[in-house]
Each structure stands twice: as C-alpha cells, then as structure tokens.
C-alpha cells in the first residue's frame, strides 16, 4: 500500500466525528427553537414589548372599564391617524384605573388586567390554528366595584392635602373608593398630542403623583394600630375587655418605664385615677394601657394576628400592594422584635411599624365583619364575546371570634360617640347612625406635623361600609382625617348604592 492510500484512509474517522459534532450542534438549535416557540411563547406573546400586542393595542379596541353603576371609566377614541387611544373619566380614578399608553406602558388596572383588556385570549400552544382564523382577539370589558361618585367625592374631600382614602364593603370585600392624592390626569398621558410633555412632567414632579399612596404608600400608623393590638390581645386571650392595670393611672403622670425606656401619654385629658379597661383605653387612646396589653400579648401573638389580616406579605389584591409590617424583624425577641421596648412602642403604633392605608382599612373591615376578613377586590365581572364571568366575594381569613369583634366594636363606638372620645374624632360621626372608629396621630419625630389617621365603619350594629383615611402631615387625627371620614361615610349611606 502506498502511503497515499494509507494516509487518506485515516481521514474518514475524523470526518465522521466532525459530522456528528455538527449534527449535535444543530440539534441544540432545534431544541432552542422549540424552547422559544413553545415553552416561552405564551409569556412572550402577551408581553407589552411584543410587536403584535403593540400593534393590536392600536387597532383592536381595548376593553372598557365600568364602575359599579355601569358608568364608563375608560374607553377608546380614534386619533388623527385613525389609531386608538384611551380616554378616562377623570383624575380621581387614576390611582385605580391607571393608564395604557403605547409609549409609556401600562399602570394600575390597565396593567394588571392587560391581557384581558387587550383581548389576548387563548393559549398559543393549545390553539395552534387560532391564528389562522379571522378574529384572534377577544377584548373583555371590566366591571368594577368602585363607585365613581364616591371616588370623586373622596378626592374632593382630600382637596390639596396629600394622603389616601380607602372605602370598602366589609361584608363582601368590594372596594368602593380608592383615592390617592396627589393624583394625575391619565388623559394627559394617553392623548398623543400631550403625552410626551405630560409624562415627563409627572416623572419630574417631586410629589410623586404616579405613586398610588393607598396601596403602595407605607406610613407610621400611630394610634389606629391599637385596634390590631386589641385584636391580638383579645384573640390570644392575653386580655379581656375588662382587663385593667393597677400601674396605669399612676403612669399617666409619671410615664411607664419599660426596660429603662419611658412611655408617655401626651394627648388625653386627665382620666384621674380611674383604671381603664378596653373601652376606656380606646376612647381616650391610652398609650399606657395598650403598651401593657402589647407586652402581655407578646410579640409572637401580635405578629401572628397581624399576619392573619395581611401583614408581612403583599395583599391579595387586583393591584400591586406594598407590604405592611409590625416590626422590622431580625430581633431576638419573640415575633422578631428587638426587645420589649420596641414591642411596647409598636403596640400603640410607633415602633418600626409601617402600614398601607389599604391594610388599615382591612383592619377596620375585620371588626366590621364580626371578626372575619373578606378578600379585597375591585373587579367584579369580565364581559367578552362569550358572555360575562362574575368574580364573587372570597373569604381571606377568620381573624377573631364574633364576640371579641363585638367587644372591640363597642370600644370603637365609644371612641367616636363618647364624650371624651368625640374630642379625638371630631366630625367622624354620621348623623343619626351609630358609628365606630379610631383616630390616630402618627408622630414622625423631628419638628414636622404628624400624619393624621382615621379608621372606622358604620352603622356600628350592622356595618355596610368600612373606611380608612390618611392625611400626610395633617396634624392630629381629629383635625384632618376624622372629618373626611365622617363626611364620606355619611355620603355613602345616603347614596344607597346597588
């Protein structure tokens, strides 16, 4: 054999191996195509960056959004080029409804329910021939539990003040009003002629109008948090409505010392040497009583009952929510508190406690619904080509017994209607209707005004509305938040909504 043939023969092996290697490489590509075309396809085809979605949003009429009476909150309009854009009923609904803009994306419900509103019905995999059909899009109309009139009234009530109002029906969890101030005009963002300027201005505005404070704002609660402490105290059995503390009257003058830290009661008139129980302590918003109750309840139980109402996790809700917390956590004491001092402070709402207005509304709703918390929701129905799908009320948790809730109701009613209590909650009472509630003055430290809070419900015997009002740096609870709450609850009860 010549070396020529011998050498040539040994080329065959490596060639085959190269062929195999290249085939494997191409097989990898085949797998990749399958991955993008099948596995990731449903997610990608609904993403707002997808060209088909963007194109559809300009030509396929997006679903409308209606309030509970059928009033149109969001609808479509054609611009000069024949492309569609969104039009909204007013700036009051912007924190809830948001906006849908081809350039600036989506916010609020427009974002959360984007797939339904733009009509991306169907799963590309399960229905591979759908795209061969002539009408692949089925936009849905959304019906909300919101009342446009109530929403507007709440926005007007806040006026120029920064803050939030949350109103819901405690029996079903339906949200009737969700207002944040400052708000913005979504129409300016979606109208093609004003969009760019308006959005730039909104981003540059230092008061952050795009931030929905009702759901994403976290604030020091102040005395409204005492209701949570009461819930935990009664629910865990650490205290009863009749529990009194012998050291409490003395501490009114000298302060309560906890581990070297002195807790003062600054805001209530002398109750003398009377030892207070639940009702009395709630009526005058007694920090001492609540600190002692908090210590008696213990960190574990306090956080546990708080969690039942939605603390320490995003709330299950149609819109994104911030997490409310009882403590910053990381402490060695039970429940994650650093020590008893932090627990005592948290018990009257001044520790490392941060809450969203929506969360506090849920606390009120818990008491109003006899200890059961219903899941908050905005969307009650979706209507498409194939009919309407309704979304009914859902129970979120059993927090405490009806008896305990009743005891707290009595205390909260006293806080609004009692002679002493009424001084803290001026204006909160609905004329002619038993009203329950709690005001709060959240000290922020430093020299600024405190936040003004109020949570409550009416009628106290058979509540149909629960409310939470926050006015940022509004002063004492009675000054700002309480009158707004009273006004709105009065208006709601007069409206007699369906």
């Amino acid at each position: 054999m010549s070396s020529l043939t011998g050498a040539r023969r040994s080329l065959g092996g490596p060639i085959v191996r190269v062929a195999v290697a290249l085939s494997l490489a191409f097989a990898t590509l085949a797998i990749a195509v399958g991955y993008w075309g099948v596995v990731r396809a449903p997610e990608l085809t609904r993403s707002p960056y997808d060209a088909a979605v963007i194109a559809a949003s300009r030509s396929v009429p997006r679903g409308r959004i209606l309030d509970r009476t059928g009033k149109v909150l969001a609808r479509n309009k054609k611009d000069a080029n024949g492309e569609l854009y969104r039009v909204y009923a007013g700036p009051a609904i912007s924190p809830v409804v948001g906006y849908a803009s081809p350039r600036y994306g989506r916010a609020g419900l427009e974002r959360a329910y984007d797939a339904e509103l733009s009509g991306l019905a169907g799963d590309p995999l399960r229905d591979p021939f759908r795209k061969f059909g002539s009408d692949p899009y089925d936009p849905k109309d959304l019906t909300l539990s919101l009342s446009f009139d109530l929403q507007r009234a709440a926005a007007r009530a806040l006026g120029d003040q920064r803050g939030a109002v949350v109103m819901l029906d405690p029996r079903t969890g339906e949200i009737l009003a969700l207002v944040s101030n400052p708000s913005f005009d979504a129409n300016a963002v979606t109208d093609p002629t004003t969009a760019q300027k308006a959005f730039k201005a909104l981003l540059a505005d230092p008061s952050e109008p795009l931030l929905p404070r009702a759901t994403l704002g976290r604030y020091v609660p102040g005395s409204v948090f005492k209701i949570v402490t009461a819930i935990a105290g009664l629910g865990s059995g650490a205290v009863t409505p009749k529990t009194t503390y012998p050291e409490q009257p003395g501490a009114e003058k000298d302060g309560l010392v906890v581990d070297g830290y002195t807790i003062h009661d600054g805001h209530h008139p002398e109750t003398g040497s009377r030892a207070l129980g639940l009702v009395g302590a709630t009526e005058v918003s007694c920090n001492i009583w609540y600190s002692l109750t908090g210590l008696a309840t213990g960190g574990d139980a306090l956080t546990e009952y708080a969690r039942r109402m939605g603390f320490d996790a995003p709330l299950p809700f149609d819109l994104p929510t911030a997490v409310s917390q009882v403590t910053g956590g990381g402490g060695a004491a039970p429940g994650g508190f650093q020590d008893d001092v932090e627990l005592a402070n948290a018990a009257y709402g001044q520790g490392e406690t941060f809450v969203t207005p929506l969360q506090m509304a849920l606390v009120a709703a818990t008491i109003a619904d006899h200890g059961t918390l219903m899941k908050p929701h905005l969307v009650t129905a979706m209507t498409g080509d194939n009919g309407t799908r309704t979304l009914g009320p859902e129970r979120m948790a059993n927090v405490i017994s009806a008896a305990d809730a009743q005891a707290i109701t009595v205390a909260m009613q006293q806080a609004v209607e009692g002679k002493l209590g009424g001084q803290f909650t001026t204006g909160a009472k609905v004329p002619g209707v038993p009203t329950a509630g709690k005001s709060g003055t959240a000290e922020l430290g430093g020299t600024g005004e405190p936040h003004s809070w109020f949570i409550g419900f009416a009628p106290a015997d058979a509540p149909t509305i629960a409310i939470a009002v926050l006015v940022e740096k509004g002063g004492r609870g009675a000054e700002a938040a309480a009158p707004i709450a009273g006004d709105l609850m009065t208006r709601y009860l007069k409206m007699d909504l369906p």
Partner: protein
Amino acid sequence: MDGLLLVLWVARLLFLLLLYVFLYRVVRTLLRDLRAAAREPTATLGRLVVVASPGSEPPAGHVFALQAITTLGRDVNNSIVVDDPFASTEHAVLTSRDGTWYIEDLGSTNGSHVNGQAVNGVATIGFGDELQIGQVRFRLERPRV
C-alpha cells in the same frame, strides 16, 4: 372561516410539507449513497496493482478495485487513467464475465501486452498475470475477502 382563508391555510401547510418532501428525498439519496459506498469493497471482482509506473499517474504501488468493466487509457474519462506518453487516449478494456477476465485492446498505437505477449483484439488474463499499457505495468490479483 371563508373559502379564501381555507385555501390560504392549505397553501401554508402545503409549502411546509413540500420542504419536508424535498428533505426526505435528499436523505433517501444520501442513505442509498452511503450504503453503496459501504458495500463497495466486498463487491470487487478483482484488483489491479500498479507494479511499475515511471510517471505520476497511476502511482506505483496503487491498488485499483475492479468492477465488471474497467477502461484504461490516457483520457480523463477512463476508469483507470494511464498518463503515459506511450498510452493511447482509449487504450484497452478489462472485462469480467462469468468469473473470467478478458482484456480487449481498443486499437491502441503501441498495443497492450499480457506477460510480454501482445494482445490481438480480445485475450484472457488470469490472476497473477502482468498487463502492460505503455510504460506502465499492472498485475491482476484476486479480490480481497
């Protein structure tokens, strides 16, 4: 779905189908080709070893696998190209019939020789015999089993 849509639907699927028909036929040809190549070595009826070759084509020592009909000559279209100035363009044909090998001279200028003897028209050639075309000498050998 109206008629046009249906036809369009059919056309789209048909296009994809035809791509695969094409691929299928190609792959079938490939496999047939590979199988034939793999089978070749055992189908030889004989081997022609180049004993002596003053030029470069065919190289000395090279072994050709023989099929039933093998042409020899200077033209590039021959099965065995003998690039020798004393070989004609179409010099001779080696044929195997019923197990016997025949060499036929195609009217070449310098003739074909088996074991030194000139070939007149057709002659038999056996295993181990030497064939001379021009200045190139071959030896016919059995196929390797």
